[in-house]
């Protein structure tokens, strides 16, 4: 084939016209680009400008310091300490698996599986959130911190950051009252956000007790610092001028709580309480402010605040003593003989009984075909209202119940706050049970019978009270009939100690108790503690209380149904043993402090509960004398615990086995 000649291949007019078309098409293409540019840069320019700012401005949260919790004298019980936590930012961790992690593992003493687990975690995070620092170890020891710091330049992407961590200085003491903190859940997060509170995932939030109840008070307001970051998340200081002048909004620390608890009294209560399980409540009878409160066994809030291992959690949950339950108000017990003051008041109120009314106790009370036994089989002989309380003679109260029935007793109990929550708020509460005929008609098979009234009259049967309720009952009797709401917090203070909120005494109910009735009951309680033969007399003498008269009542609440043979305490299995109660107040003539002690499965009220109460009362009056002579203490001194460990069940069992046998005092 011969190539075409030149004249044949010279572009003709036809070809030239096509050049014009191609040129026009290309210009149209350029115009299309210009139009889109106009849309992006002019029409939507502002929108994209805002997006580009959002791109490089990173907002760093400045966490607010959480408020302190102090006792009434300003001793710090809960504050925050720096926890040195090691983080790895996957994006900045070059050669993570080969170099950094083995080195870090060596410094922190990791074993092979731990290192492998970390490696996997970081590998996963590298894909999902490469710029999110991943905690690899919390609470480094001083040594570990120094070691990591010294090799910092060999550990790319590893940083140690001091993170404020809640520090419960009292350990397991007051744990139920103070509460603890742990990570917020997604549902809570959404709920709080809808209420306008700002939380982020991974934040800690108060659980239980004061930490939960006063969460919004303690929390404070977070601040924010804006930073310029590049696409790799690195902060670039030299670009800070692009941020404008609101680059930093400082955080506002949370407010401090000042409790009504006196830590010195609290310590004494902890030390004096011998039981492995139980509660002590000491309350100011004129205000309802709680001065000391023990719930045993406790838990360590330091551990529960993000430091607990799954196995520790499991052993807490499996513990038969259920340490997570606060026994002050979230568990109820048969009150036993401590309930008898209510029966006595109801008896006097009915007009059918007077303090002088004598009933002869042959060791029991026959109702129909059944004999209701008095705890003293040989009988107390003739007893009146006062001696009935002093000796805790059941027969006198059986007679009352037989005569007036259950409902007047129930009414008196309810007027004094039984069967309903006290309204303390800070603590979880159960209402307890104050049975009435109506209650039995509903709840018991066969409905209400007189026998139920007899049981309830001596604090058995379906009677159930929380230790806190009982303390408020005795406080109301002590102050002449005013039922206060129990409170744990005296005031909320700002950062500089200014009072932001003062909690004043709140009256729940005022009960008409004629002075004669009250006097008769107080005399009976006085005799119980102060006159030989009274069930708490020995405890009072042994405590060394001098010049202070105590009015109180012991109680021994049966837990297991009595068999034909009465067992000695030390022969019984722990969980079969009776609860030992004491409830009382002092001074008898002008009461200030009411104390309730329940020693769960402790044995007898006189031997196993009353001494604790006596020790608390003695300490209270000693401190009062001491404080009057000395200037007020320095505020904000951190609390240092001197307490021994709380006794365990085994300690209690060995102790009673040694002392066993001679504690069969009349109750």
């Amino acid at each position: 084939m011969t190539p075409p000649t030149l004249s044949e291949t010279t572009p003709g007019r036809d070809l030239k016209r096509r050049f014009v078309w191609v040129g026009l098409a290309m210009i149209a293409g350029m115009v299309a680009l210009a139009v889109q540019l106009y849309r992006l840069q002019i029409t939507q320019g502002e929108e994209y400008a805002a997006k580009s700012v959002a791109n490089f401005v990173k907002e760093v949260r400045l966490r607010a310091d959480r408020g302190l919790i102090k006792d009434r004298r300003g001793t710090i019980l809960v504050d925050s300490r720096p926890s040195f936590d090691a983080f790895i930012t996957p994006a900045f961790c070059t050669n993570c698996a080969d170099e950094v992690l083995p080195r870090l593992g060596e410094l922190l003493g990791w074993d092979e599986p731990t290192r492998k687990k970390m490696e996997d975690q970081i590998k996963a995070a590298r894909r999902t959130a490469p710029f999110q620092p991943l905690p690899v170890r919390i609470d480094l020891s001083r040594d570990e911190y120094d070691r990591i710091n010294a090799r910092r330049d060999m550990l790319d992407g590893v940083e140690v950051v001091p993170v404020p961590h809640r520090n419960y200085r009292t350990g397991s003491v007051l744990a139920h009252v103070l509460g603890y903190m742990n990570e917020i859940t997604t549902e809570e997060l959404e709920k709080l956000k809808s209420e306008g509170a700002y939380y982020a995932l991974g934040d800690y939030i108060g659980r239980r007790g004061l930490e939960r109840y006063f969460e919004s008070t303690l929390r404070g307001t977070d601040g924010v610092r804006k930073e310029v970051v590049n696409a790799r998340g690195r902060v670039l200081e030299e670009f800070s001028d692009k941020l404008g002048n609101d680059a930093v909004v400082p955080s506002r620390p949370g407010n401090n709580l000042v409790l009504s608890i006196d830590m010195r009294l609290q310590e004494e209560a902890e030390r004096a309480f011998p039981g492995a399980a139980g509660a002590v409540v000491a309350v100011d009878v004129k205000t309802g402010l709680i001065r000391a409160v023990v719930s045993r066994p406790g838990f360590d809030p330091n551990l529960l605040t993000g430091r607990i291992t799954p196995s520790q959690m499991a052993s807490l949950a499996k513990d038969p003593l259920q340490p997570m339950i606060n026994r002050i108000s979230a568990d109820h017990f048969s009150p036993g003989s401590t309930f008898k003051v209510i029966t006595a008041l109801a008896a006097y109120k009915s007009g059918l009984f007077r303090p002088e009314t004598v009933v002869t106790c042959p060791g029991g009370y026959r109702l129909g075909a059944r004999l209701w036994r008095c705890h003293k089989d040989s009988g107390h002989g003739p007893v009146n209202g006062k001696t009935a309380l002093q000796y805790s003679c059941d027969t006198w109260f059986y007679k009352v119940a037989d005569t007036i029935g259950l409902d007047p007793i129930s009414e008196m109990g309810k007027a004094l706050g039984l069967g309903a929550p006290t309204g303390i708020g800070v603590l979880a509460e159960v209402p307890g049970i104050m049975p009435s005929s109506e209650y039995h008609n509903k709840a018991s098979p066969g409905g209400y019978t007189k026998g139920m009234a007899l049981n309830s009259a001596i604090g058995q049967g379906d009677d159930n009270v929380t230790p806190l309720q009982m303390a408020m009952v005795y406080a109301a009797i002590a102050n002449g009939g005013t039922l206060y709401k129990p409170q744990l917090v005296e005031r909320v203070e700002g950062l500089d100690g200014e009072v932001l909120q003062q909690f004043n005494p709140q009256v729940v109910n005022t009960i008409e108790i004629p002075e004669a009735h009250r006097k008769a009951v107080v005399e009976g309680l006085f005799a119980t503690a102060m006159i030989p033969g009274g069930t708490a007399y020995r405890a009072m003498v042994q405590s060394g209380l001098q010049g202070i008269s105590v009015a109180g009542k012991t109680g021994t609440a049966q837990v297991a149904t009595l068999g034909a043979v009465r067992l000695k305490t030390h022969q019984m299995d722990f969980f079969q043993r009776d609860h030992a109660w004491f409830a009382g107040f002092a001074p008898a003539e002008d009461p200030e402090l009411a104390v309730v002690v329940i020693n769960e499965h402790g044995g007898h009220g006189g031997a196993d509960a009353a001494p604790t109460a006596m020790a608390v009362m003695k300490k209270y009056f000693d401190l009062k004398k001491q404080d009057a002579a000395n200037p007020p203490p320095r505020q904000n001194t951190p609390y240092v615990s001197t307490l021994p460990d709380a006794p365990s069940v085994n300690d209690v069992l060995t102790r009673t086995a040694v002392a066993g046998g001679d504690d069969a005092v009349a109750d």
Partner: protein
Amino acid sequence: MQLRIERRMVPHIPWGLLLSVLAVSGLGIYNLASASRAQASPVWTSQAIYLGVSLLIGMVVCLVDYRVLHRMALPIYIANILALIALRFIGHKAKGAESWFVLGPIRVQPAEFMKIGVLLMLAKVYHDDFKPGDGSYGLKRLVKPVAVVMVPFVLVLVQPDLGTALMIFLSSLTVILFGKVRWYLVAVMMAGILAGAFIIWNDYVRDVPEPRTTIVRHMLKPHQSKRISGWLDPESDLRGSGYHAAQSKIAVGSGGMSGKGWKEGTQTGLSFLPEQHTDFIFSVWAEEQGFVLCVLLLVLYGLIFTFGLGVGFNARDRFGAFTAVGVVAMLFWQVFENIGMVIGLLPVTGITLPLLSYGGSSLVSVMLSIGLLVNISMRRHMF
């Protein structure tokens, strides 16, 4: 062989074209100096060296009479194809594609040169094929040019280098259309484009529950498929495949009317744009210089295309005319696709922006093209 520039050629040097090219190149280096400030080493100095080298290469191309190239078109074409095949065995892998030869310090991308080889071969076919009085091309006559295009197109596509394959396809298509095609074939092609649009709509846009019945999607590699979905909805996956598209739109849009100022762009300075000095170089210009100077750049490109087509318009023979159209079409499609992708009109493909993007191979291939145009222009009256 003539390896000299005669005096009578000088008046025919297309000064407008050269000035526009030099202007864009200058803006390119100025822009690179800003774009590469986040890097450890400023790349604009090496780009300046590349520019000098590629200008020299372009000049060398001017020296050779393009009729020599006409005779050499087939060998050049075959040599390029052999290079592409060799790449399959001894190529250097980068970003999942084998597209580089490493020759000491120089990395050569054969696909860049293949583009020009195809266009030369195509021009030769259209030159040799000419019979006076011919009408438009029918199916039978199209076999030859289409075969010339398909071989390198497939070779580049399987590298896989979707972007360059697309460029070969588009510029060749322009040349073939320029060579006049029967109207029914054009109609078929339009139908094909509509079908392609339907496939994209069906595979990516249509809101149906997974697993959807797809026509093509399941045959694409995941990273290619993601590019298409990222283009369709860049905001949906900001950290993933749509990241480039979204960040580049933000960069362009935030430039506004007058831009943030040279070296003041935050998207650029804070590295929110990956590959900002190569494929996404235009977003740097748009962010820092704003709408007005963007339009100026578009006008300069428009001038290059117009002067380039003018060279073809005045060319002495069909080979020259077709070569000019092919070369200008190649530049046009690169500019259009690159800027289109940066401003969110087109999906993200790995296409560099002629004269602005950093990179020696790209610059050399552009200067080769310009050299060809100058060559054709200078020899328009040589008989």
